[in-house]
Structure formats: C-alpha cells, structure tokens
C-alpha cells in the first residue's frame, strides 16, 4: 500500500479501527477465559477450599512443591504424555486419510463425511457405556470367534492397554473433526496443479507426496496443535471409559486435577497442577508449532 502521511489523527483512527474489529471478541475472551484463569493462578498460591466466605491464606509455592512430590501427579503425567503421543499420531493419520477419501469423486462422499463426523456427537456417560461394552463384551466375543489376538487383550484392566483404549476411542471421536479441517485445506489445493501433474505422468502417491502434502502443511500445523491441546486436556473420555482404572494408572492430568480440587476439596493444589499442566502443554505446543511452521512451504 502506498505510504501515506503519518499524521497522528490517522494513527488514532487506525487504533480505533483495530479496537473495533478485535475488541468485541477479545473482551469476551478476557472476561471468560483470562480473568478466571488469572484468579485461578492466584488461588494456586493459597489454601483456598472453594467454600465462599472462608479465609484464604497465602501459602507461597508450597502447592507447587506438593504437586512435584505427588506420586499420582507423576503417574498421571506419564500417562498423559503417552496418551497424547498416541492420539496425535493416530488422529492425524486417520483424519487425513479420511479427508483424502471424502474429497474423491465418489458418490457416497457426502454421506461419508457425515458418518465420519458423527462419533463427535456422543460424549459423556453413554460414550463410556457403549465403549466399555465394546471392549469388555464385543471384543471378547470377537476373540472367541476369530481368534485374533488383538481382541483378546485385557483392554481395560491393564494400565498400558487402557491408555491405548482411550486413544482408540478418542481417535474414533476426533478423526472426523480433524477431517473437517483437512477437507477445507484439501479443497484449497488448486485443481490445475494436480491436473498438470497428472499430465506429466505423476501417480497418486507422487501427487499426494509432492503437491498435496506441502500445500496442506499449514492445516497439519493447525491439526497437530488442536489434537495435542485436546489430548492434553482430555477429561470426558477418561472419566467415562476408565475413571483411572486400573489403580489410577490411566488417570490423565485433567482428571487428577479435578480429583484434587473437587473430590479432595484441595483447590489450591489442584490449581497448581493445572498451572503446571498449562506450561507443559504451552512449551510442547510452541516447539511443535515452531517446527511445523519451518516446514511449511511458502507459496
């Protein structure tokens, strides 16, 4: 844009415009997310019991020290990392695969998009009931008829298996969600480019590898970030499917935080764990976004 005179009035006008465009949603965001979060951070330095009217004592960093010495926090930490790693991989692979499938010129594309998205609509206790039933009864029945070892695993009563089970359910739920984002990106890939490649004799793998992948790289960044932050914060599937079983080995951090804060009425310590979790995800996500951005091609 041609550089105009930098007079103060113009600058002020720009500031107003900026405020007018960004202000409304940022205001809501600050009121609903940032202020409560900062209050929460403050509580993490106190012994707040969440009972209104009770005196709140400042206890320094002792909640943080307790969190780091808490064995269960360490167990949940490990479980969360493992769960997140599996989820990010599975969901993105499956989600991208589904997206590739439903942008093809197949007749059922529309129907399939709806179908793949539908698992996202089931949450909470019904999700838990249905999937517990699948793992405990349906899988056992399948094992007995097919003899396939994968169905015979102790899906919910072994710690590692239980984390896999949660990741499978999460993938089932979220792959369609991520698919939506990949679909939007794939549709942005210019047809002319693909057709040109076709004429040059590129096969489908080559086209995907050399044209589609680089062009949807930004969507990868977005999706990786979303799946990662979602998995780090997972509560619903955890509560409904395993509730920490066996022996709190599959209790993810958010459930552990909830337990500390609400079940044990120890809000300060729960809040300290939440702050730690926030920084943990923050660092991991930033690293991930940084590397993905580097990969993205300039167009």
């Amino acid at each position: 844009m041609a550089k105009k005179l930098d007079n103060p009035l113009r600058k002020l006008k720009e500031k107003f415009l900026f405020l007018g465009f960004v202000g409304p949603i940022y205001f809501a965001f600050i009121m609903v997310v940032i202020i409560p979060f900062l209050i929460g951070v403050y509580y993490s330095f106190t012994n707040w019991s969440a009972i209104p009217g009770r005196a709140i004592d400042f206890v320094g960093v002792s909640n943080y020290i307790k969190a780091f010495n808490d064995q269960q926090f360490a167990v949940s930490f490990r479980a969360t990392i493992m769960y997140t790693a599996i989820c990010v991989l599975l969901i993105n692979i499956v989600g991208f695969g589904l997206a590739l499938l439903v942008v093809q010129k197949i007749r059922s594309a529309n129907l399939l998009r709806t179908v793949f998205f539908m698992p996202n609509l089931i949450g909470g206790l019904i999700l838990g009931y249905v999937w517990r039933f699948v793992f405990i009864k349906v899988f056992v029945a399948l094992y007995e008829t097919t003899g396939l070892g994968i169905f015979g695993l102790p899906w919910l009563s072994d710690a590692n298996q239980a984390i896999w089970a949660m990741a499978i359910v999460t993938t089932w739920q979220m792959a369609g969600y991520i698919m939506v984002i990949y679909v939007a990106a794939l549709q942005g890939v210019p047809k002319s480019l693909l057709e040109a490649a076709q004429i040059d004799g590129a096969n489908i793998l080559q086209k995907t590898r050399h044209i589609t992948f680089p062009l949807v790289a930004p969507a990868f960044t977005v999706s990786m970030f979303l799946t990662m932050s979602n998995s780090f914060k997972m509560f619903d599937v955890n509560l409904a499917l395993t509730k920490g079983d066996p022996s709190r080995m599959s209790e993810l951090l958010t459930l552990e935080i909830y337990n500390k804060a609400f079940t044990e009425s120890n809000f300060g310590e729960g809040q300290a764990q939440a702050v730690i979790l926030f920084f943990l995800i923050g660092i991991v996500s930033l690293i991930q976004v940084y590397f993905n951005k580097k990969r993205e091609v300039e167009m």
Partner: protein
Amino acid sequence: MKRLVSISMVLLMVIGVLVGCGERETTNEQENVTLDIFQGKVEIVDQLEELVEDFEKEYPHITVNLDTSGGGEDYLAILKSRMNSGNQPAIFQVPGPTERDLWIDFLEDLSSEKWVDVTADGLLDNITVDNKVLGQPVNIEGYGVMYNRAILNRAGVTDEMIKDVDTLSKLKEVFETVDSKKDELGLETTMGWSVGGTAWWVAAYHTFNVPFAMQSDPMNFIQDLNDDKANFIDNDRMLAFKDLVDTFIKYSYEDVASIDYEKQYSDFASSKTAFIQQGNWTINQLNEIDENLDIAFLPIAISDEKGWGNDSIPVGVPNYWVVNKQLDSKVVEASKLFLEYTAMSERGQQFMVEDAKYIPAFTNVDVKDADPLAKSIISYASEGKTIPWVWHAFPSGMNENDAKQAFQDYVLGKKTWEEALNFLDEKWDEKTN
C-alpha cells in the same frame, strides 16, 4: 454400638401420629418467598416435584425451584459452583461429618424443629455439632450380602442355615455350598462383586466401611487416625478384613477388577449369580428384570469374633437436608417450613413411604408394605443387629481415590494386604496433616 436399635421400634410400632401442618404461626401479611432446593437424587425427582407442587398449593406465598444435579455429576462439585455463583440454594444436602464441617458456616440450627423429636435415635449424631442439630435425615438405607433365596434353597442351604449366619466362617460355608453346585444351578459365578468399572463404589464405599463400622467406637477410631494415634496396619479389624475381601474375590467373577455395575445387578436379578453386596436402593432395578425375586440380606462378616458386629448389616442415613442460614430470614423460615412439611404432614409422609419408597427416619411414619429388602433391613434393626455408616467422616477423597486404588492394587497383585494398609495409612496422613 447399636445406635439404631430404636429405628426398629419405630418402624415396627406403626405409630400413626400424624401431626397436621399449618401449626406454625402463619402471619397474615405473607410476603412472597422464593426457595431454591438443590438435591442430588435424580431417581426421585418426579416424586419430589409433585411434593413441591402440593407444598406450593398449601403455602401459596412460597415458590420453590427444584434443581437436581444429574448425570452422575459430582454433587459436591456442582454445589460448590452454585455456592460460588452467589445463587446459593436455600436447602441442599450434606451426607455426613466431613461435608458438614466444610459447610458449617452455612448450616442453620434446626434443633427446635418439631421433627427433631420424632427422629429415630442416633440418626442425628452425624449432623449434630455442639448439641445443635444442623440437618434433617432424608431416609435410611442399608446394605449387606444380598442373596437369592430360591437359589440357596436349591443348593441345599436351608432357611435355618441362612438365619444362622453370624460369622465369616458360616458365611463362607454358605458361599461354598452354592459354589460347589454352580454348574447345576446355572450360575455364571457365585457372587457378583467388583472393585472397578462402574461398580467401584460398591467396594470403595460400602465394603470399605465394614472394618471401620466394626471398631468398638468407630468415630473415635477415625479421630485417632486423624490424630495419628491409630494406624490401619496395627488394627485387628483391618487385618481381619483381608479374609472377607479374599472370600469375595474367590467367589466373584474372574475379572473382579473391571466388571460393571450393570452386569452385577442384572446377573443377580436374572439368577446368574446367587449373591451380590448391595443395598435396598437396588430394589426397583432388580424388579424390572424379575419382579418375583425372593431376596434378603446376610451380614457382611469379617471374622468369627463375637462383639464386633459380625452378625450385623450396615445401616445409615445417606443424606441430610440442610438449610442455608446465610440467606434472608424469610427464606430460612420458608425452608424450615418445607422440611417440616416433608417430615410431619400426611402428604410428606406419603411422599416418603409411597412415592419415594424410603425407609423413613421418623418414628411418626407408618411403613405399610415394605419391599423385601426394606423388610430385611427392618428385621435386622429390630434385633439390634446394625453397624453404622461411617465413610462420610473420612477425609475427602479417601474412598473414591485411595480406597479404590488400594482394592485394585490388591486384587491385581500389585500390593500385598499389608502394603495396601500401609498405603492407606500414608494417604490418610497426607490428608489430615
């Protein structure tokens, strides 16, 4: 400790003292009052709604909002958010000492209410502080080793033998007799018990309660644990408790760590198991599958010791109604009126006995036709064979986090019994220091 002896009297005596309502001074100039009730039992929400409607008819100046926390959501978590939102309920529920102390600044003294005099002895202990009664018991519930009489009889266990069970040895004998004929009886397993899945609470609350309730003075024992004057590992009841848990594991499903509640009760109701450890609240669910079940309770014995209460079943008050004293005095008065209406009016009693199918906590209420499980509880109570419910006095989180984990660790072989007890000691100390 047979605090509940008198409930029996109460329940058997069938006193028809129906105190009419409207005795409270009703001033002429009645200002409109809105009353928020927050409760956690989805099961009786329709019945309660009807009671509320009739209450509003009786007292037109009072409007009641009934708010129920559903979805298996943690009642306490939602209650905390209600309290913090400033939209505080006027009447809410407190299960026992731990939460009573949490909300103590909010609890109105109800000592001079009429229903206090007709409340069965002992039922107010958990909600009384410095001689002030702070809540009204909602009802009485009990649990035990529930058995299917038809199956037991077919296995050769006579009614006499059933009646005779007052020690763990005898309980084991009954289990063994049934277990030996498992295949002929068409049982999947003898007993349906589990420490995980959606049935975790059966073990972590109810089974776990037993060794505490059998202490010579349970509340004292809990206080000693709090003060670090007592330990799990040094306690004879806690050590003996292993024998009961081993028995349950032995006769239960192979996958005792993850069997769900639905399977537990539907197997029992469809005669695929002969025993479960459950309470009288399951009666409707069981009857939906088979309405002619002939069922009752056996004691949950942990040893053969006399005097521990091995011949008894745990009976207690699951929840108390409490009144929020921090609200306007008109609201507080209206709340008291509602509690009085529930306990003392004919309509309130109809609600308890006929609509909600409660075992009432009041001596003025007449139970006409109790279901088989309620009958069994009443009969234990009438013989003084009850032990208390004490987990509401444990530090917050002890049941749902630590007891559950200890049970699962033990079942899965990750901890020996001694290690599990040490673990509980450690967790208890963490929470009380």
